[in-house]
């Protein structure tokens, strides 16, 4: 068994309350393409089951819980965004890979660019 699996993390940074929950606003990129908006958020050290992505009343919110580690107490990642009406709320999907959460927000059909055929 590797030593990494049971590494004894230091209990607390001297002079700090280890059990105090820290809330972090994760850094995000928001990218707009023709058909969707993409939100990328840095959530290192978090497992997919500890992430909660919600879309409610035009607001997209993400929550993540990170267990206490390396002398820091438990960490909560939280961020929310107002989402334009052009997003199809029922088609939002999310995936977490290498500590980066990727949320895809497809646009509603009506606002997607459409090529109009010109008849002769």
């Amino acid at each position, binding site marked *: 068994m*590797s030593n990494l699996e049971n590494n*004894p993390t230091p209990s607390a940074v001297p002079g700090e309350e280890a059990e105090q929950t820290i809330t972090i606003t994760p850094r995000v*990129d928001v990218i707009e*393409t023709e058909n969707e908006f993409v939100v*990328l958020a*840095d959530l*290192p*050290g978090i*497992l997919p089951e500890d992430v909660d992505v919600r879309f409610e009343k035009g607001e997209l919110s993400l929550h993540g819980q990170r267990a206490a580690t390396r002398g820091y107490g438990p960490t909560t990642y939280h961020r929310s965004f107002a989402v334009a009406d052009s997003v199809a709320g029922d088609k939002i999907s999310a995936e977490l890979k*290498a500590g980066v959460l990727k949320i895809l927000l497809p646009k509603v059909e009506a606002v997607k660019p459409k090529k109009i055929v010109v008849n002769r």
Partner: protein
Amino acid sequence: MIVNRRHPLGALWHEINQVQDEFSKWFGRATTPQSSPQFSVWEAESVVYAEADLPGVDPSQLDVTITEGNQLSVQGERLPPEFTGAAWVRQERPFGKFVRLFTLPSLVDADRVEAKYENGVLRLMLPKHEAAKPRKIAVKSD
């Protein structure tokens, strides 16, 4: 490269950056500024541990090197997001090359170092070198 079309000066900044990159090429300066990730380092009796949050990095591109028994160097690169026909709405996540160099609190056995990248966190387990481990000295008496 994604042009920031939301920024009123986006096109201008883009232009300025391109000119700057061009100059940098001519005068040999690195075009991408390097950042250094923050590490937590702690030690147990026979092991030194080091951890850093490095979300969104390809682990095969991470270069972890130990020189002179106690100099740790971690280098890598985070690539910018690639989407075709895309525009930035917001850009906060840094990308580009990064490097971090520091002296470990004791000599380590470079051959037995374990490195693991999981959920965007790099974890290093560096066993201390025999010479650096605490040794009890028996006191002789006549």
